[in-house]
């Protein structure tokens, strides 16, 4: 199954049609997907910030932002501009180098992880063999950034906040990886494209969510904890902790932390939809429908429609998950740090291990249904 548009070749050919040499055309192509993805991620963050305000307002029976643009759509932009123009304060006794690099180290790996998110058959920056493993590996860099910013602030609250944040990310990474490992075992591949393809073919019935009912819960809990979303937002619980590792941060550096957390939320939702909800797959197996109607899969209008549908489906699924995450924020009380660690190590980890073991057993017993 190699359907889908070959964007790279079409782009290169059209550029060469203008008389450019192939090497130069390739040079123009290389940064294009990455830039598109960065713009997409940033716009996604703006949308999430707006959604968060609107949904939480609705949950509390308020109106939320409404003056900046229609329905307050421009509110996140206004926030961003405000943060850009704020004074960038570095405390006198802070370590200026580490203080500056810390937020960058938190944000960069998250953006880098967008390498592996597929929006369609060929709509992905790189399809690498170790895709989902790379995502887990990159998300393990963030604790270093948190520790760095906590240490560099030269402040005991920040240092403790940094240590707590790092402990939280480390303890929730293990159940997360084990949940992902069960999926990987069923798909026989670490590549995100293969994982989606293994789920496609039967529409909504083939999605991994039916075969991994425990796994997706573990994954979503651990992903929320990794993003420091609300039941687990201890490192940045502003009202009780002197704001954790970001106590001393102001202006754009503070904004970088929030950007990183929101980009991570969008990314986790995207990866969730890839792993458990069939990625770009439509709930009805569209290939079969096109086949019954007698449309050849290589027809160009069909390919364009499929690509557009793929992007829409991926984004829709992930925004549905983000909606759930925001609702969770207003329904679930915040956990304490010992409850958080207990939940991670004493409940999620054994359950994830058992889930992995059961998946392996089922895979050996029913190779038809569990990807033999």
């Amino acid at each position, binding site marked *: 199954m190699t359907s889908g548009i070959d964007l790279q070749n079409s782009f290169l050919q059209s550029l060469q049609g203008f008389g450019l040499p192939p090497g130069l055309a390739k040079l123009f192509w290389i940064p294009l997907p990455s830039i598109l993805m960065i713009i997409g991620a940033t716009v996604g963050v703006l949308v999430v910030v707006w959604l968060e305000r609107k949904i939480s307002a609705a949950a509390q029976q308020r109106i939320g932002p409404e003056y900046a643009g229609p329905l307050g759509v421009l509110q996140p932009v206004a926030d961003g501009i405000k943060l850009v123009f704020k004074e960038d304060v570095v405390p006198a006794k802070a370590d200026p180098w580490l203080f500056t690099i810390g937020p960058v180290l938190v944000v960069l790996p998250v953006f880098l992880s967008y390498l592996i998110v597929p929006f369609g058959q060929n709509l992905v920056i790189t399809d690498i063999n170790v895709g989902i493993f790379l995502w887990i590996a990159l998300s393990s860099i963030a604790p270093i950034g948190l*520790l760095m910013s906590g*240490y560099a602030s030269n402040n005991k609250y920040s240092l403790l906040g940094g240590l707590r944040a790092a402990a939280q990310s480390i303890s929730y990474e293990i159940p997360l990886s084990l949940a992902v490992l069960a999926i990987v075992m069923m798909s026989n591949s670490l590549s995100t494209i293969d994982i989606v393809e293994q789920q496609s073919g039967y529409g909504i019935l083939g999605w991994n969510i039916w075969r991994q009912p425990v796994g997706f819960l573990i994954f979503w809990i651990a992903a929320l904890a990794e993003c420091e979303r609300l039941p687990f937002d201890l490192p940045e619980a502003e009202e009780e902790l002197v704001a954790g590792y970001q106590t001393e941060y102001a202006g754009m550096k503070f904004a970088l932390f929030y950007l990183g957390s929101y980009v991570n939320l969008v990314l986790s939702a995207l990866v969730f939809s890839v792993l458990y909800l069939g990625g770009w797959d439509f709930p009805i197996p569209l290939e079969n429908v096109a086949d019954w109607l007698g449309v050849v899969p290589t027809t160009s209008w069909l390919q364009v429609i499929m690509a557009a549908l793929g992007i829409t489906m991926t984004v829709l699924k992930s925004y549905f998950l983000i909606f759930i995450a925001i609702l969770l924020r207003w329904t679930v009380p915040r956990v304490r740090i010992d409850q958080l660690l207990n939940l991670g190590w004493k409940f999620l980890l054994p359950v994830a291990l058992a889930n992995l073991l059961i998946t392996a057993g089922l895979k050996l017993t029913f190779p038809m249904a569990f990807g033999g």
Partner: protein
Amino acid sequence: MNLAEGVQYISFLILAFLVIGAALGVVLLSNIVYSAFLLGGVFLSISGIYILLNADFVAAAQVLVYVGAVSVLILFAIMLVNKREDFSKIPGRWLRNLSTALVCAGIFALLSTMVLITPWQINETGPFVENTLVTIGKHFFSDYLLPFELASVLLLMAMVGAIILARRDLIPELSQEDKTSTALTLPERPRELTSASK
């Protein structure tokens, strides 16, 4: 030299510069926290070199294990052990420095002879591995089975030991007379959990 080779060459130069510079920083800087962060940088750059060598799985594993686990552990250790100690004058200190220098020079000589006598010419027509994961898995379960199993048993032992240490169920009650012998017992008492106090 086409575009791909040029990109590879320049990336290699940058990565090599980063590795050497950061490694020198680890050794030469006096602030131990800087050294720990730079060590993370060294590990990251080495994973970049692995990517250049087409070893994608090793690169990702390097980031996960060394940057994500080892560096963070070192940082935790440094930040939690906050002990400042003034170095006292030791009479025969030059002897220690001299022996360290000798050992370092010996290792350097050994490594440089190894670099010089190894035939670095690789067979460029060798088999190109399409899926490194499958190849690694096959090796793990055929000719490298024993080391693989040994490593997993060792890690399991380490994990069980860590859990037993962390639970602290096995520490006997401290009686009054053997308060001095703390060589084999942990100095702390098992802490009452807040949830268990009611």
